[in-house]
């Protein structure tokens, strides 16, 4: 078996609050192959963003890595010295953030913010870096890049800014792109453009993608495999087709059930969307047993008592439920 590009094993992230350490993310394991697109789905607060930050080595107090391993090409990177980690960041693992409005420096021209990548990682001169920044903008299909390089972020629309973010992230041809809700803050029409652009460029460069989103539909469209996270645990992971056809975990079933379907609307008229009752439990007060039990329609006594173990599925996925279908 070949070494996966990224392997996360038994990742644990601790949140320190009020002198106590809470278990924000635990038992999270997944791997991503070269050029593969992998989706991580869950509601806000489920720990998907901090999982992404931990891969980048960017967790900051009060969050910290409490255990597990993150390996890139088989080499563990979670304990690398800061200087070595910096050389990986941006060069081999790049990240796109949710808010294109605030993720760019408002006082710096976008061209300069792209050019920095070449200066940092490829020892380019500023002059050369600026020229390459213009090319990078052309690649993400920003119109008239020769003028746009000198623009400041506030002069660009949200979609254009996210294109700039993509240009920055892909500037040095990374092996892995971590995209944390890259389209959440954008208009629906722009969302599709950005996702397509990302998928196309990553496919062309052979860049693997860790796509993080609360939007199961988006992830299923773009990714080959999908993991669903709930309350700091991966509750189910399967191939994207399979997870839609046969969701195993009640939470995944609930997520899929709550997606509006336009085709169903035309066939059956207006229908009430199904929802998952209750709210995501607070990180400081997770219920005992299965963390989904207070909201689960299939809950029985064992769910409140025992933590369900991850069970492998025949086709390579896994599910973490006492009563999975």
């Amino acid at each position: 078996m070949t070494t996966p590009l990224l392997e996360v094993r038994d990742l644990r992230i601790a949140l320190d609050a009020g002198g106590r350490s809470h278990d924000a993310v635990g038992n999270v394991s997944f791997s991503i192959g070269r050029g593969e697109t992998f989706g991580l789905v869950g509601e806000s607060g489920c720990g998907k963003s901090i999982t992404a930050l931990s891969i980048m080595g960017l967790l900051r107090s009060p969050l910290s890595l409490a255990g597990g391993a993150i390996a890139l090409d088989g080499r563990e990177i979670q304990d690398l010295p800061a200087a070595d980690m910096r050389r990986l960041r941006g060069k081999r693992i790049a990240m796109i953030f949710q808010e294109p409005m605030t993720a760019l420096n408002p006082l710096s021209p976008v061209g300069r913010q792209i050019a920095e990548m070449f200066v940092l990682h490829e020892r380019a001169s500023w002059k050369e870096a600026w020229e390459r920044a213009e090319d990078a903008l052309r690649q993400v299909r920003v119109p008239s890049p020769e003028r746009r390089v000198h623009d400041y972020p506030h002069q660009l629309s949200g979609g254009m800014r996210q294109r700039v973010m993509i240009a920055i992230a892909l500037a040095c041809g990374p092996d892995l792109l971590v995209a944390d809700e890259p389209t959440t803050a954008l208009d629906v029409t722009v969302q599709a453009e950005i996702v397509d652009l990302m998928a196309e460029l990553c496919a062309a460069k052979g860049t693997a993608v860790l796509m993080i989103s609360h939007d199961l539909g988006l992830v299923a469209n773009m990714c080959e495999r999908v993991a669903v996270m709930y309350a700091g645990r991966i509750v189910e992971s399967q191939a994207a087709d399979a997870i839609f056809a046969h969701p195993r975990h009640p939470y995944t079933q609930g997520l899929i059930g709550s997606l509006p379907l336009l085709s169903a609307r035309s066939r059956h008229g207006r229908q009430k969307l199904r929802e998952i009752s209750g709210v995501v439990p607070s990180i400081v007060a997770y219920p005992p047993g299965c963390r989904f039990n207070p909201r689960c329609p299939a809950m029985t006594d064992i769910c409140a008592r025992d933590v369900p173990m991850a069970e492998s599925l025949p086709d390579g996925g896994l599910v973490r439920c006492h009563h999975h279908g």
Partner: protein
Amino acid sequence: MLAVLVRRLLNVVPTIAAVVALVFLLFSVLPGSFISGMNEDGRTTIDPAVMERMRKEMGLDDPLAERFVKYLGRTAIGDLGTSFRTREPVTKLIADRLWPSLKLTFAAMLFAIAIGVPLGFVAALKQGSVLDTASMVGAISGLSLPKFWLGLMLMYLFALQLKWLPSFGYGDGGLRHLTLPAIALGVSPMALLARTTRAAVLDVLNADFVRTARSKGMGESRVVTWHVMRNALVLVVTTIGLQFGSLMGQAVVVEKLFSWPGVGSLLVDSVFQRDIPAVQGCILLIVFFFLAINTLIDLAYVLIDPRIRYG
């Protein structure tokens, strides 16, 4: 740039008009006058007839409205009137004092910026360290020390004990005489600047774009020089502007203490003598200085923040 300047200058006009009116009215409703004040020390007695003639000459008996119109007319053409005390034009009195005043104010501000801004930067970057705690305790003390007391201590230490510097006076106006009053005046804006800079830098360090910079693989020193400094500067410049503008007014105490021949000590002397034209002139100058500095600061924003230029 030019458009911003013009817009700013147009904004200044009503402010000046309001200040001119306020300064006049305020001193017209205050009880007592230059003439009555002359009798107050109990040593001199002036013939009531002489007093009457002086009141007429100085126009103190004219109706308020008439005096106001005259005053406005004079001020508009740059004539600030004649000092009751010295019988000289107030413009000349002020002109003599302007250079020392500007020198003191700029020196104090230079001191405040040169020490306060780097101190705040380092404190923020080493948040929680001994240096951070020490400099912030220092900053709070610097803010709460009265300038008057601080000036006396400086005199005691550097002039009386160490005999490094003259304790007071203008001398040749050089650095030796300037140093102590400038420090006495500069310590409080320095402390405030250190605190604001620290807060601004901490704020920027938590911004999303700083996280982006880190995700690009940038080391902390580059994150700071490439992305944090300029953003933090916006707030720092605001504070510099507010402090700088009000510094000429704050200088009153320090100038008096160090016998520094600036506008501030002229103001104090004029107030005690009820020399209304001189007082009005001094206050107008202090307000003008404030407005001028603020306009300059607005222009500085345009240079720092591109959003203002186009927005």
